[in-house]
């Protein structure tokens, strides 16, 4: 089989951040390809996406793409006893909402957000600095001692220090940690908090009937002459020091200078403050499951249809779920978030799922019955928070966020700066594009 001219960048991950990264890199003159899975599983990121940062919008000239994005109205945590915790993009509105819910910690919300916003600036600086840029980069990065302590600290410790209300802590952990598959008691998880409070991290909703973010960005890829490949990775190898080769079996062999996993990995790739380029590919310790429940009749959501909902009773529950996942078990009480699509479907994301399951220390892949088990656990749980949910469910379809090759098919020495994952950030598109820019300029 002949090998074509190598790509500058091969993007794995058929999702908005992957498309945006590919389109922007191609627009700046690089030869870029996006690899679609053979079975073409598009993740359901098209309901609520992180916003498209202004700089990406400008570079791809999206004003003509016919897309309108509405910010989600609120982040809402539901509790079994009926209590609701609502936070908003606006800190002042959040303070008022928490006060109404009789959470005195609400007074601290503004300080909390201000402090984290400052930390986010540090983290952004660090992420620019780490990951190979520093040898040429003259920017001096040296965190102060208290900054360093924050960066290595745990989210649970930080939250405990700030808030007395366990429910508020749980709420924050639900939306800040879940997307990263973190539990909150692991070192470095405090960093995940900060990116959630950056400007472009608030979840956005596409207006009904309009094109999805993924579609718009995919079209931008086509316009920028990004090549689309199809197939499943069988093997990645390194024929030369500056070249990586991806074997897609019957779908051919392709070469690229950099392989960039832009998929929203829920595992190792998302640990904040870990040099992203040093995480070869998603470790798949923890992965995310998405379940779409098609309903026979629309249900009334307790806080409106355009909010993002979170279900977790306590911080301990989140920590336990992650511990279960890390040990290869499906969490007994899985925390999750859900959203309501414009069509009235409910899409659940369960971020604490094992990458591979383990029985008696032997790893195995997810089987149909495991998927069913998870799906029924979530359905049972959700019915306790949404009245009339179970009878309304017509169909449930489950997907696991698995886009990376298995451990054995990777190159042996993982210290490979040419096979890299997207940095962890709640501003997924922005972070993916910035990082792709750097990869291309480095190559």
């Amino acid at each position, binding site marked *: 089989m002949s090998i074509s001219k190598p790509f500058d960048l091969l993007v794995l991950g058929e999702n908005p951040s992957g498309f945006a990264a590919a389109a922007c890199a191609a627009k700046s003159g690089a030869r870029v390809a996006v690899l679609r899975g053979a079975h073409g599983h598009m993740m359901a990121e098209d309901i609520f996406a992180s916003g498209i940062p202004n700089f990406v919008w400008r570079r791809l000239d999206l004003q003509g793409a016919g897309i309108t994005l509405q910010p989600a109205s609120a982040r809402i945590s539901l509790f079994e006893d009926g209590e609701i915790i609502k936070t908003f993009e606006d800190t002042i509105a959040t303070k008022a909402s928490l006060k109404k819910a009789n959470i005195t910690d609400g007074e601290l919300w503004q300080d909390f957000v201000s402090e984290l916003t400052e930390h986010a600036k540090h983290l952004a600086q660090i992420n620019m600095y780490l990951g190979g840029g520093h040898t040429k980069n003259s*920017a001096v990065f040296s965190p102060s001692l208290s900054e360093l302590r924050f960066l*290595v600290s745990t989210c649970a410790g930080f939250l405990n*220090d700030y808030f007395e209300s366990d429910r508020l802590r749980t709420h924050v952990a639900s939306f800040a940690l879940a997307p990263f598959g973190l539990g909150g008691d692991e070192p470095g998880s405090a960093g995940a908090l900060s990116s959630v409070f950056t400007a472009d991290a608030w979840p956005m909703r596409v207006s009904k009937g309009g094109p999805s973010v993924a579609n718009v960005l995919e079209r931008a890829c086509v316009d920028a002459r990004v090549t689309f490949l199809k197939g499943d990775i069988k093997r990645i190898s390194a024929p030369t020091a500056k070249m990586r080769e991806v074997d897609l079996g019957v779908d051919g062999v392709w070469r690229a200078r950099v392989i960039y996993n832009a998929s929203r990995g829920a595992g190792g790739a998302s640990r904040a403050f870990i040099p992203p380029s*040093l995480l070869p590919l998603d470790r798949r310790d923890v992965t995310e499951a998405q379940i779409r429940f098609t309903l026979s009749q629309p249900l009334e959501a307790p806080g409106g249809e355009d909010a993002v909902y979170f279900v977790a009773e306590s911080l301990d529950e989140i920590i336990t779920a992650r*511990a279960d996942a890390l040990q290869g078990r499906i969490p007994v009480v899985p925390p999750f978030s859900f959203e309501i699509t414009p069509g009235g479907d409910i899409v659940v994301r369960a971020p604490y799922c094992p990458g591979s399951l383990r029985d008696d220390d032997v790893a195995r892949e997810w089987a149909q019955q495991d998927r069913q088990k998870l799906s029924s656990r979530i359905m049972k749980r959700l019915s306790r928070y949404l009245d009339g949910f179970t009878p309304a469910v017509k169909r449930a379809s489950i997907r696991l966020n698995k886009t990376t090759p298995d451990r054995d098919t990777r190159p042996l020495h*993982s210290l490979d700066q040419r096979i890299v994952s997207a940095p962890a950030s709640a501003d997924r598109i922005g972070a993916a594009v910035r990082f792709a820019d750097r990869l291309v300029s480095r190559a």
Partner: protein
Amino acid sequence: MPESKNATSKTQSRAPSKIEAGIDAVVVGATVEGLAAASYLGKAGFKTVLLEAGASAGAAGREREFAPGYHCADGEHLLSALDPELVSDFDLYRFGLSFSNRCLDTVYYFDDGAAIRLDGEPQRWKQSLSRAGCDEIEPFGDFMEMVLETAALLRSHLKLTMGRDGRQSKFMVSSIFSNAPPERVALIERFLFGSTDDVLDGVFKDPRLQNLIMAESSLRMAAAPHDAFSFLALVHALSGEVAGLQGARAYVKGGIVGVVDALRRAAQAKKVDIRAAASVKSVIVEWDRIAGVELVDGTQIRTPIVVNALDARSAFVNQIGFEKINLEFQHVLDAPTPKTASARIHFALRGAPADQSTKANLSRRLVLAPSRTALRHAYHSARSGKVSAPLIIEAVFPSAFDEKAMAAKKQVLSIFAHPIPYDENPSENMRAEIMEAAIRSLELIMPGVTDRIEASELRLPADIAHESGVDPVTLAARPLILEQWARAQLLIESSGIEGFYFCGPEAQIGVGVSGAAGRVAAKAAMDDSKSRARFL
């Protein structure tokens, strides 16, 4: 007038029973760090008083008879990072410091019964592996060489310093990288920030070698191998030097007691006035300057310099008080308590167990390295308050270095079992579970050892804390190295109280006895005193 008087005025309003003046410096706590600080101050000609709450200096490290005829001391049994400057500045050998063994070999045991012996000298690890018939000698040897080199490179960045410019120190990541060879930068980045799991990914395939490294990087640390930043623990441990050998572990004659005794003699030789049974009630701060200390018996000692070797909570909150310390500094005092700890267990054994790998040579360090999954499970259990086996075990035979015990055919085995749940008031049930898990793990190293146990003694952090009065938190598992370093640095440089120097357990980085914090505190006190003299 509202009541607003601070601790100072309170103590002044009540006539002290006795006021002692003319003292240049007071050191609180006769720990290794306290003794080191006092020795330096004494050497520089400061009239120094060392106050120890216990009955005698260094009592915490005294040897005890834990079972009839069997002796053991708490505290560290092996040294890996005794401050070389301290040793040479006082020539501690002159004061009785002597090594029974300068570099112990380590034998690693695995769940499957296999064992690997690594030479005590890191330079000879490759050779010892080839003797063990291991497949991946080259990658392992190369990898460990890189770790050792990086450790040496990072040593100067992760030690304590007293910045004299008064600004908070910074973690000079950029200077680490700019001083490193360019091809090594990515690796150092990984070593600094990565989890042990991340670092080991793809380096070598042999699970035993991976388990070995995971055990070494997690032993006595709160961070599990899958936690970010956890690999640095191993790098740091290998940056230490004892008896001039980087990465080695030595047994001092008499154990920790030997170190304390040598330092005490050094301090006495430098005319330090060591007073036992002198418990400090409060440190007198006038405005934001140290003015002296007040003892529980009411005696006041006026002094411009106080070096405190007690834990941070006693030093800052109990003895100085919230109203005198900086606001943001409070964050430094609060640190989340690690949920895990190590158990120290002494066993009295009938005769020496022998197996193929130790060949009855007991002057070795024995380590049980559980599998990745077992270790992950052990950490999760410990963090949720449960005990699971197998645990990481580090075992030595103190009796192997003490001829008397050998002659009597008696052996004392001392182990650290890790990780167990950290509990300030462990129940009897919990104690039994810990003991059982430890013995089950120990059986994997020495099959049949259970039958030889004549007596045993479980020493949990809570026990030692209860007896010696130290904050038990300081005896829990050690946090991440980066966190320890940042906190230690903040504790020593930003309390905002002039004349106060801290060298308590929180100022130590990594596991083991060092003395560096005491040296740094004393040097800072001497420098400040010099610059003040110049100013006047």
